[in-house]
């Protein structure tokens, strides 16, 4: 019996047949939403500065990321946009990250200066987590050079604590990062991806046409190890990269996400590498990791090649509790969709699932699983854009700006690309990089924030045409880390069940809202929600109304969030 049959049988046995994969070949589900570009209306005028001046330095084409973060805890998601800067000797204008405060009316106000984030850096990515468990989300912005940790003071400002936290003095080409409590001590540790050993003075000449310099592929540079920092609980971190077994000087990492492939409650780490095998670090529960990407079937493509892994996403796609992994890759490589075939073993099913074909022609970066139409089946969003602005001259048919994918879950294990049906604004080609998911207008559905390289960001408001409802949970840990990162939330309604893991990281250089959102269709209530905290605490709350956001505080119960 294969896994699909096993899951079907098992779910049938417990009355959860609605989750079992349906027959293939069913009629395509129509798209019932529009993604409206409300960037201008929202007053977000940010424009990414790659610093490009003609020498085509590698970092210029790789950034940057973004985040949905409620930094002031007013219940409304704010927007953080990471920025690059001009290269030394080629300074034109000052450019910094931008923090936009949500005015609760669909508009935002740039509060970068007031928040103390008006700091020039060649930023790449961002991850948000309450590392000091004070209730206020802190920021870690990765950069080419020194990445920075900003502690949220709770007064609308951030303080750069990079040096005092012990994270200073490190120069690297850092990309995605993720807060994760690897030792489950209730304090968020920090995982940072590093791409290659690159510096302006180390840049090499690469050319796609033999004459003009072009952006190099990572083969031209040495890899660099990812970093893992243990939170000491006193505002400082200890580098446990070497002792934990994470160290790998050959890695060229761009994306990372939290998974628990063996279901033992210890967070494992899946890292996407560019031109190197992807890595799956299995948490041994003793402060060390054992790498097993090849054995798990996630290191390579289905034909055994190491691809150009960029963004990553993970989710329990079929309610079985086992994660499915998505990885975006270079064009002509196809995105990977690694479905579990047995505990801890995956198979790339991108082609069969309908993702491989459309993604072959695109160079994917940010990606995220999100139930955009709230039908109970998670969809996959992928934003694209080539790294070479001259690719049109080199390969007929290839374009620099590329349309995104909206792989709509058909409910039978297959997806179809419905991006063209989501509105002209969304389907417009972009040189996209970062992608974050969150409900900035608090209408229950999930909106998208997309960054483009050396261009504006795009805020897409999800306008649902159906009457589907959602239910959202924001976790507050007491014994676990305060963000509840690593907790598994499972809801039961009727004969169906869905689960989500609270996680930072994922996508590419970006951070999505930590709250977990479930689409429940037209249901008014769910039967119950069960939360498995990283502290091993289990909590269950029955009979909850949908259309609301709940705040679940570990061991202290559940309440409806203000205003919802």
């Amino acid at each position, binding site marked *: 019996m294969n896994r699909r049959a096993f899951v079907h049988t098992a779910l049938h046995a417990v009355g959860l047949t609605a989750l079992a994969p349906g027959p293939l070949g069913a009629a395509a589900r129509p798209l019932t939403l529009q993604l409206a570009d409300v960037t201008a209306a929202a007053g977000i005028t940010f424009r990414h500065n790659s610093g490009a001046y003609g020498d085509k330095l590698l970092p210029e084409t790789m950034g940057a990321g973004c985040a949905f973060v409620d930094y002031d805890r007013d219940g409304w998601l704010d927007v953080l946009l990471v920025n690059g800067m001009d290269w030394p000797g080629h300074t034109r204008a000052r450019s910094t990250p931008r923090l936009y405060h949500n005015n609760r009316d669909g508009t935002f106000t740039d509060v970068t200066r007031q928040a103390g984030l008006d700091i020039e850096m060649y930023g790449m990515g961002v991850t948000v987590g309450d590392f000091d468990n004070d209730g206020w989300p802190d920021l870690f912005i990765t950069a080419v050079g020194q990445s920075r940790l900003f502690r949220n003071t709770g007064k609308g400002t951030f303080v750069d604590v990079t040096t005092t936290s012990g994270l200073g003095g490190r120069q690297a080409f850092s990309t995605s990062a993720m807060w994760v409590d690897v030792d489950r001590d209730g304090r968020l540790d920090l995982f940072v991806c590093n791409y290659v050993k690159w510096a302006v003075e180390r840049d090499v000449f690469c050319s796609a046409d033999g004459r003009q310099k072009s952006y190099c592929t990572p083969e031209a540079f040495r890899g660099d*190890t990812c970093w893992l920092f243990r939170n000491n609980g006193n505002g400082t971190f200890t580098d446990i990269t070497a002792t934990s077994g994470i*160290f*790998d*000087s*050959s890695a060229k990492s761009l994306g990372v996400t939290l998974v628990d492939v063996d279901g033992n409650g210890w967070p494992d780490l899946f890292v996407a590498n560019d031109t190197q095998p992807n890595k799956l670090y299995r948490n041994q529960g003793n402060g060390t990791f054992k790498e097993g990407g090849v054995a798990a079937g996630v290191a390579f493509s289905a034909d055994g090649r190491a691809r150009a892994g960029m963004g990553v996403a993970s989710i329990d796609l079929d309610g079985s509790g086992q994660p499915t992994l998505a990885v975006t890759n270079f064009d002509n490589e196809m995105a990977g969709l690694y479905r579990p075939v047995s505990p801890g073993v995956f198979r790339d099913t991108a082609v069969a699932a309908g993702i491989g074909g459309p993604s072959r022609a695109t160079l994917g970066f940010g990606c995220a699983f999100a139930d955009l139409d709230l039908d109970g089946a998670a969809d996959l969003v992928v934003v694209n854009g080539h790294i070479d602005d001259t690719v049109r001259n080199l390969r007929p048919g290839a374009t620099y700006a590329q349309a995104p994918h909206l792989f709509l879950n058909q409910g039978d294990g297959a997806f179809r690309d419905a991006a063209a049906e989501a509105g002209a604004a969304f389907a417009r080609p972009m040189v996209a990089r970062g992608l974050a998911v969150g409900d900035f207008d608090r209408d229950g559905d999930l909106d998208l924030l997309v960054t483009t390289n050396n261009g504006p960001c795009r805020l897409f408001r999800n306008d649902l045409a159906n009457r589907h409802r959602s239910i959202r949970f924001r976790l507050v840990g007491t014994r676990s880390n305060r963000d509840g990162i690593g907790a598994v939330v499972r809801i039961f309604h009727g004969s169906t069940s869905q689960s989500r893991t609270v996680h930072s990281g994922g996508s590419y250089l970006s951070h999505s809202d930590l709250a977990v959102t479930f689409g429940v269709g037209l249901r008014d209530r769910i039967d119950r929600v069960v939360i498995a905290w990283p502290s091993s605490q289990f909590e269950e709350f029955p009979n909850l109304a949908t259309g609301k956001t709940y705040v679940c505080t570990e061991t202290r119960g559940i309440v409806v969030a203000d205003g919802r």
Partner: protein
Amino acid sequence: MAGSSSPTPPLLAGLVVTLLAVIASAYYMTSQITALRTLQADVADRHRRHSLQLLRIQNNLNAIGLGMRDMLDNDGPYPLSAWSSQFARLRADLDDALHVEATLTAADIEPDQRTYLVQSVGQFWDALDRTFALDASGQTAQARDQIQVSLQARQASLSTAVARLLARNNEADAETAVRVRGIYDDVQRQVYLLIGATLATVLVTGLFVIRSNRRVFARLAALSDERRELARQVIAARESTMREVSRELHDDLGQSLTAMGSMLARVVLRLPEAADRDDLREVQVIAQATLDKVRGLSQSLHPSVIEDAGLDVAIESYLSGIERQIGVAVSFERSGAFSRVDPAVAIHVYRILQEALNNVARHARQSQARVRLAVTDASLVLEIEDHGPGLPSTNERHGLGLVGMRERATLIGGALTFTVPAGGGTCVRLTLPMPDAGAAASPAGVTA
């Protein structure tokens, strides 16, 4: 067919030869394909998998080399021991690759080469462990020296050894490819040979069958001609005999009986006694009756009236007595110029009429029949029609009478058909082309 042999034995011999050739070729090709499959599966595929493992080993060695380079160029905060987990992963994969490679090593790989490789890898890991131990004991400089002096050299030596194995594998692959090509060439030649032999056999057999068929058909044609000539001669001889007997009866016996009657008439006139005269008159009556029978018999053996008065008169004369003889009333319709009918042909028409009416008497169980005779410039048509039960079914054996009718019709160049007239029964139709006025009076070879 005296003097000719049956084509079956040569054909059977050709078939056997062909089958043997096909079986032999199939056996040869099957054995060659089996050998090819074995060669590809056991040798080529093993070489391929062996090469893949060697490439995996080489890849690991390259990764080890890069790792050592990174250790020496380390500008980060990490001690050399940080690389231990990275090398542990490489070691695990390298050891696994060596284990798999050992199961795939080709026989043409010198055992010493593998032994050297395995021992060298072990020595490398020992040296690496010592290097990490040096670093752990604070002797980082000595550890770095160890990497530069010893480990990098060992890694290079291992890479060279694996490269040699790969090169040897490539050579073995090339040799295998040559052998595979040789087998393909042999099989291809064999296929061509089989095709050629089969085509030649089919050609020879075909020509032989054509030649045999021609001979058979020629024999059949000759036999048919002989049979036709024989039938003509038999019929002619019969008619000739009957004509001679008829003439003898009419001219000889008839004259004698006529004379006997005349003499008896004269004797009767001279006898005085009435009783004697009565006795002689009875003898005279008997003689006259005998004379009439002789004349009738003569007429039936050969109706000389045909030569004397023509076919139509002969038929009319015949039919005039037929009702009395066979109990069938026959109507006669005639048209045309009967003088154009050659007596040699007419006798056969007459005989066909006789046989047809005999058949009517025997089978039709009818009291009436109709005879039509029409002669035109182009043809003579004789029809004898009755409304009896009709012709016997085709699977019943026809009597000799019908055969004789057909033979006669064929002999005079006519055609005999049997049809069913409206109302049932049988219509026997003889159609005979009439010769041109200036042409010979009788068909070639027809005599009566």
